[in-house]
């Protein structure tokens, strides 16, 4: 399947995210620079943006161990540490929450949903098929842009295996 990166649609109303959540994600992205950061956001129906959980990016580790299978290092990709994300999922479940968003940074380029992002998010076993994806762009050590992507299912095909596509919208800071 040929994929092209998905840019946020400027025609769509921006998503408003809590400023505290964005500040935590931005701080993680700046600290991880020049590598990409990754993590999860947990919440529930009433407040989907309750907690930011940082996860380790294992891409450089995998690249060093098996460069043929993992041709990129952490500057060009992320590979979320599985133990970190399973723990985050278990702890969220114990609090009556779920994973509502997967976040990561792009270093040196825009906040789009890349071909690689889509490849993993579309795989049939992706653990959070209906989660949002928050992508932040880090250039010159600063977060310069952010966008939110979500799977949009075709009408009449609500199931996880039905036809779908990702759409993106810009993100602005809320006042809370």
């Amino acid at each position, binding site marked *: 399947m040929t994929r092209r990166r998905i840019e946020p649609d400027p025609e769509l109303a921006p998503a408003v995210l809590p400023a505290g959540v964005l500040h935590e994600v931005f701080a993680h992205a700046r600290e991880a620079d020049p590598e*990409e950061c*990754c993590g999860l956001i947990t919440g529930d129906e009433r407040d989907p943006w309750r907690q930011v959980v940082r996860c380790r990016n294992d*891409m450089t580790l995998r690249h060093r*161990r*098996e460069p043929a*299978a993992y*041709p*990129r290092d952490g500057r*060009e*990709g*992320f*590979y*979320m540490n*599985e*133990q970190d*994300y*399973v723990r985050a*999922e*278990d702890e969220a*479940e114990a609090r009556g929450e779920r994973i509502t968003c*997967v976040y*990561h940074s*792009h*270093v*040196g*380029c825009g906040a789009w949903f*890349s*071909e*690689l*992002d*889509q*490849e*993993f*998010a579309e*795989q*049939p*076993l*992706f*653990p*959070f098929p209906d989660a949002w994806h928050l992508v932040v762009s880090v250039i010159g050590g600063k977060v310069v842009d952010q966008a939110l992507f979500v799977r949009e299912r075709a009408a009449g095909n609500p199931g996880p295996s039905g036809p779908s596509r990702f759409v993106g919208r810009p993100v602005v800071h809320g006042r809370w």
Partner: protein
Amino acid sequence: MTARVRISSALRPLAGGRSELPVAAGSLRSVLEALGRDAPELCERLLDERGALRRHVNVFVNDEDVRFRELLDTPVREGDRVTIVPAIAGGRGA
């Protein structure tokens, strides 16, 4: 001689909602064969048509990724914990 297979919450619908399954110890291959009898839908998604682990799935025996051990020949001993987790990855790319 049993080991435990831990199923992450995202995969539980494929395993009848169970979070853990007891299996006989042996190799990872024999564990997955046993899992296939108990939860065939799950097993189908873990292995490709050649019987190899699919690219987007990771399996740990205790805390060790079998990709960095002996893949399906990784030994699973009594009391070991086998964890199956789909990959979350992506990034800007080249």
